[in-house]
């Protein structure tokens, strides 16, 4: 029997059960709006300045704070804008970087148009050939729920491709992501510990 497609918010809830108070999390766009409802926290790094750059911000944080787990929750459209970052991360090889991609095949925040190469692009293959230490792909929520805790206890850089569907309609108040208060809260929280 074919597995039921995973909903993004269900995957994020499973992940959130294993995220600690010291972890830094960088979610993008639609994933960010789900994530801040599931795990509101000052160490959510939400302001990336330009589409595609989350994985690069994550690399900087991972190199600068090797004592913290840095978890980037990327989108497939976003990652396509910065594929070179996979190679840069593979080369720098930070053990504390965990790179999840929520793959739904669309630019969900920009009208739901399909990404180029939808259903043909192999994100896990990109990460594997870029030199990530381990690469995983999930299409079944139960299996992801069983394994995600163990994945986060492995040394990185780790790449996880989640084949998901949208969580449904969202209210996208971008001041919750780009507002200066968000960046100040993050800066203060990271400096405090």
């Amino acid at each position: 029997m074919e597995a039921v497609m995973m909903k993004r918010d269900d995957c994020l809830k499973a992940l959130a059960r294993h995220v600690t108070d010291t972890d830094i999390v960088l979610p993008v766009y639609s994933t960010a709006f789900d994530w801040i409802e599931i795990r509101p926290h000052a160490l959510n790094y939400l302001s990336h300045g330009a589409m595609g750059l989350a994985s690069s911000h994550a690399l900087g944080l991972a190199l600068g704070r090797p004592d913290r787990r840095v978890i980037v929750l990327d989108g497939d459209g976003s990652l396509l804008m910065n594929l070179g970052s996979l190679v840069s991360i593979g080369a720098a090889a930070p053990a504390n970087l965990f790179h999840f991609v929520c793959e739904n095949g669309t630019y969900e925040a920009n009208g739901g148009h399909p990404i180029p190469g939808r259903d043909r692009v192999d994100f896990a293959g990109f990460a594997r050939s870029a030199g990530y230490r381990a690469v995983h792909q999930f299409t079944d929520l139960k299996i992801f729920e069983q394994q995600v805790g163990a994945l986060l206890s492995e040394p990185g850089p780790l790449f996880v491709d989640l084949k998901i569907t949208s969580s449904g309609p969202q209210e996208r108040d971008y001041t919750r992501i780009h507002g200066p208060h968000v960046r100040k809260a993050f800066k203060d929280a990271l400096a405090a510990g």
Partner: protein
Amino acid sequence: MQQAASTESRGYLHGSSIIREIKASQIEFVVSVPDITTSEGLLRPLSQQTAPRLVRICKEDEGVGICAGLAYAGRRALLLIQQTGLLDSINAVRGVAVEYGLPICMMVGLLEKEPDVRPMQSKRYGVRIVEPILDAMGITYHEIEEEADVAKIKPAIDAAYAQSRPVVLLIGRRPS
């Protein structure tokens, strides 16, 4: 005496002097895509040292994000690129460095700039447009053309971090 020293410094730019100032600025990471102007005089010797740590990247806008993450982590970084890469990264610089007000410090080699010619007087369109673009974006920049200009580097980087804003250091000739 000061005049003589200045005259002596004309026409020369030493990579070792720039690296000395980078280290004096407490830069811990150099994030770079190779640039032909600074390739031999700066990037090559930096690649042979353990500190600052060299992070090689694929595209310059990645570096803007990496330097932002490092800034939040309280670590100083320098993005060493060519002006073609700066032009390619304008949106990242706009969003991350300018609108968020982060200390993204960029050292930018000016490809094909003629020595001893001010960038805006260059015959090369790709050189001539750089400073007007930085002016339009409200980004502070400094020309590093000869040895006497190296003294601008540390104050520029210190000011960028003190005021949490970007700065660009334009390298106008190939350092020896």
